[in-house]
C-alpha cells in the first residue's frame, strides 16, 4: 500500500527520521528549508550586509550548508555575503580528496573560496603529528589547530561570522561526551547556537536542530555532490563511544536526539563552580583560558619532541620535562616525590611545594584529584613536587617569561 504524504496527500517517497511522517520529495525539501529558515530567524543568526564564512570541508554537512544558505539567502533575502573557507590538515587520502569537492562547490555555487593549511600556519601536518603522538589523542591536536586556523583564515578574509555545519547529532554527541568527560564549562556552552560572541569571531550552527540523516537525504534527493569518507584517524577517538550510543538511542526513540539537545539547553550549573575565564595567550595573542593557549602548548611540545605536552596529565609532563632538562643540563634539581605510595596524604619531599602540589591543576571538588588536605582520599595520581621555580628558564619559555613563573593551571 503506497504511503501518502501527510502534507499534500500525494504519494510519499520517504519517511522523515525526525518525526516519522511520510512525505513526498517536494514537501520534504520545503520542510527542511523552512525549518532552517525558522532556526535562523528565531535565533537571529544573520544580519544584513554581514559577511559569513562557511566552514567547508567537502563533507555532507558543509556542502548542504553552502547550498541551503545560498538558497535561503536568495529566497528570503537575508542580505549576507557568503564565502567558503576550507582548512587543509594535511591528511593524505582524506583531506586532499575532500578539497577537490570544495573546489567543485566553489564553481557550482559561485562562491569565493580560501584554503588555509596547517603546514603554512604551524609547520606541521596531521600525518607528521600522528607519527609523533600515535593514534590516540590525535583528534585533540586536529581540533585545537583547526579552530585557530578557521579563525585566522576568517580574519584574513575579514568576515563577521563563521557558519559551521554542526548538526543535531554532533551536538548531542558533544553533550554526552562532555558529561562523560566531566567538562562542565564546555557542557554549559556547547548547546548554544552562537558561540564566541565576546572577543573572538562568533560562530553559529544553522543546522543545530537538523538530523544528520535528513541532511544526507536532502543531499541525495537534490543530487548534491560530496565526499563521504570518515577521517582515517577517527576510529580511536573517544567521541566514537558517544556516537555509537547516540545511534543506538536513536533507534529506540528517534526524537531522542532533540531530547538530548533540550536536556543540554536546560542544564544549569551551580553558581560556585569554578569555570575557566577567558583571557589572551601571551605568545600568539589568541583567546585562551590560560596564560598560554593550547595550540602554543601543543606546538611547543611537538617542536621539542615531547608531543604529549598538551594532552597528557600535566604534572607527569612537567616531570618528564624536568627529567629531560636534567639530562641536558646535568644539574640536580629537586627529586620527584614518592608518588606510588598509597598513603592517605600526599607526601611531597619538597616541602615548600606542598600547597602547590597539583592541587591547582584540579578543582577543589574533584574527587579523584590529589588534594593534600583531604584525609580519606588516596594519592592516586603521581604527585609531582617539581617546584616550578627550579625549572631552567631559557629552555622552558613556555612556562612563562618571568624569573619566578607561577605554575600553569592547565
Amino acid at each position: 500500500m503506497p504511503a501518502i504524504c501527510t502534507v499534500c496527500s500525494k504519494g510519499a517517497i520517504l519517511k522523515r527520521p525526525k518525526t516519522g511522517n511520510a512525505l513526498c520529495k517536494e514537501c520534504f525539501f520545503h520542510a527542511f528549508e523552512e525549518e532552517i529558515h525558522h532556526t535562523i530567524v528565531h535565533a537571529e543568526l544573520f544580519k544584513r550586509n554581514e559577511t559569513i564564512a562557511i566552514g567547508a570541508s567537502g563533507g555532507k554537512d558543509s556542502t548542504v550548508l553552502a547550498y541551503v544558505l545560498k538558497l535561503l539567502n536568495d529566497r528570503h533575502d537575508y542580505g549576507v555575503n557568503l564565502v567558503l573557507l576550507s582548512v587543509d590538515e594535511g591528511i593524505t587520502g582524506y583531506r586532499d580528496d575532500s578539497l577537490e569537492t570544495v573546489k567543485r562547490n566553489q564553481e557550482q555555487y559561485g562562491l569565493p573560496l580560501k584554503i588555509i593549511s596547517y603546514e603554512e600556519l604551524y609547520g606541521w601536518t596531521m600525518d607528521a603529528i600522528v607519527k609523533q603522538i600515535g593514534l590516540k589523542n590525535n583528534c585533540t591536536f586536529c581540533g585545537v589547530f583547526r579552530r585557530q586556523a578557521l579563525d585566522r583564515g576568517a580574519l584574513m578574509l575579514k568576515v563577521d561570522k563563521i557558519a559551521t555545519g554542526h548538526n543535531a547529532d554532533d551536538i548531542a554527541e558533544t553533550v554526552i561526551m562532555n558529561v562523560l568527560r566531566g567538562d562542565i564549562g564546555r557542557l554549559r556552552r556547547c548547546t548554544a547556537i552562537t558561540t564566541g560572541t565576546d572577543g573572538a569571531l562568533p560562530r553559529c550552527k544553522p543546522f543545530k536542530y537538523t538530523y544528520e540523516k535528513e541532511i544526507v537525504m536532502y543531499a541525495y534527493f537534490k543530487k548534491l555532490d560530496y565526499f563521504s569518507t570518515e577521517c582515517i584517524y577517527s576510529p580511536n577517538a573517544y567521541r566514537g563511544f558517544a556516537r555509537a550510543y547516540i545511534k543506538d538511542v536513536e533507534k529506540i526513540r528517534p526524537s531522542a536526539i532533540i531530547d538530548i539537545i533540550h536536556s543540554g539547553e536546560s542544564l544549569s550549573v551551580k553558581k560556585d563552580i569554578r569555570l575557566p575565564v577567558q583571557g589572551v595567550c601571551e605568545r600568539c595573542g589568541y583567546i585562551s583560558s590560560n596564560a598560554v593557549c593550547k595550540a602554543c602548548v601543543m606546538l611547543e611540545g611537538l617542536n621539542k619532541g615531547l608531543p604529549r605536552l598538551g594532552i597528557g596529565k600535566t604534572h607527569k609532563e612537567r616531570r618528564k620535562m624536568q627529567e629531560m632538562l636534567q639530562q641536558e643540563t646535568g644539574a640536580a634539581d629537586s627529586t620527584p616525590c614518592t608518588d606510588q605510595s598509597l598513603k592517605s596524604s600526599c607526601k611531597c619531599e619538597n616541602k615548600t611545594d606542598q600547597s602547590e602540589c597539583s592541587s591547582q591543576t584540579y578543582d577543589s571538588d574533584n574527587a579523584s584529584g590529589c588534594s593534600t588536605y583531604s584525609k580519606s582520599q588516596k594519592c592516586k595520581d603521581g604527585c609531582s613536587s617539581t617546584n616550578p621555580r627550579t625549572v631552567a628558564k631559557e629552555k622552558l619559555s613556555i612556562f612563562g617569561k618571568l624569573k619566578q613563573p607561577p605554575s600553569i593551571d592547565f
Partner: protein
Amino acid sequence: MRRRMMRRLLRVCAVCLKEFLGCFQVYVTHKFRAAIGKTKLVRDGEKVLVGISGGPSSCALLHLIQEGLSQRAHKKLRFKPGLIFIDEGQVVGQSLEEHKVTLTRIHSLLRQSGFPYHLCQLADSLDLERVKTLNACQSNHSAVNKINQSAMDINTCSNPVEGDKGDVEISGQDENCCDLIEMNREAEKLFAAQLGSIRSISGKEDFVRALRHRLLLEFARQHGYSKVMLGNTGSQLAVRLLTDISTGRGMQAALETAFADRRNTDMMFLRPLRDFSSKEIAMYNNLHRLECVFIPSLTTMGDVGASIEHLTEAFVTGLQAEYPSTVSNIMRTGEKLDSSSAVDLESHCALCQGPLDTDVGMSSALAALRFSLEISTMGKTNGERCIKGDNSVNNTNDELCSNGVNYDAKVECCGKSDGSCRSSTQLSVPDEGLVLQTLCYGCRIVAMEMDDVNSLPEFVMKDVAWRNRRSVMKAEIQDFLLDDR
C-alpha cells in the same frame, strides 16, 4: 612485586596488614556515615522512610542502618527508620505464586530487621486515599526489639511485642500483608490498563518510576515521616543521569543524582549510597553474607536495545571497563549541576514533580520540534493553532489526532509564558493540551505515547484541574496583580 603476590596469597589487607576486608568494612561504614553526617540533614529522632526494593543495594543499606543504629556502634546514628517495600510484580505480569514467593521472602527480610515496615503495591499510587489505611507491620523478633527499644519508640503498630505470642502473630501478619495486596483489584486493573497503553518500554519505565516516587511521597507524608532514604548506588545514579539526559529530563538530572532531592519542599529524598560503586556493594554483601531478593523488571533478560535505560546501563558498564574513571566523572558532573527547586507548586510537573522545563524561548529544541511537527503535518492539523515556544497548547501528533481525543477547537493561548492559558474550562474532561501543559518535557513524551492522555493517574488529573481553576482565577484578577510572575 613478590610482596604483593605474597599479600594476595595470604589475603592480607594492604593498608593495615591484618585480616582482609577489615579495613574495607571501616571504609564503607565511614563513607556511609560521612555522607549522612556531612550534610547535617538528618536530625536526631527524625522519622525516615527507607525504601527497600530487595536488591543488593537495598540490603546493604538496611544492614548499614542496622549497624549504625545498634548500641555498640561508635557514635550511633540517631534517626528512626521505617521500611517500605513496593511490590511491582504487576509491572512484569508475575503470576500469583511467584508473587507470593517474593512477598514471603521480602517479608522475612524486613521482619528480621526489627524496624517497623510496610508493604504496598505500586497500583496503590493510583488510589492514594487507601495509602492512609495501610498499617505498619511490626517485627516480632523480640531479641532484636530489645536492642531497638531503647533507640526508638514503637508506636506505629498496634501489636504488642511479646515472645509467646510471637509465632501466631507472625503467621497472622503474613496473611494480613498478603491480603492487603489482594484487596486492591480495581486499582490493579486501572494500573494495568494505563501501563499497557504506553507503547515503548522506556515510556513504561518512566511511568513506573514517576508512580513509585509519588507513592513514596504520599506514604511518607501520611504516616508522618519527614524524609525518605533510597539505596541508589553511584553506578546506578551515573546510568540515571545519562538516561535522564537522553530522555529530555536534563533539568531533573541534577535532582535525581544529588544526595538530597528537594523537588518537594516538604519531603526530602536522600541517597546515602551515592558514592559507592556496585562492586563495593557486592563485596559488602558478600562479606556479611546478606541475602537479596531478586525481583525481575521490565528489561530483565531483555535485548540491549529494549529500553533507553537498559542501553545506557550497558554503555556505562562497558565504558567503565575500559576507562575506570567513567562513573566517577559522571557523578562529578552531576554534582556540579544545579538542583534548584521550583518556586511554587504550579511550576512542578504533575506526574514526576520535577521542575517544569518547558518555558523556553522561540529558539530552542522544543520550539524546533514543534515547528517540525507542524510543518510535516500541515494538512491534518486544526486551523487554530498556537505556535509559541512556551507552555502553549496542542501537540500535533498524528496518532493522537486519529484517536478522537477531545480536541476542543476553542482553546486559545493568551501568549503568556507562565502557564495561565485560559482555555475552555466548561468541559468535564480536560483538554489534552491543558494536560500536556502541566507536564515536563520528559513526561510529555510518555504521555503522548498513551492512547488517551486523560487516562493518566488520578493525582495527575486532579492537579491539572486544580491548576486550571487557579489559572481561571488568575485571569480574572489579572489586571490588578502587581507582581506578575
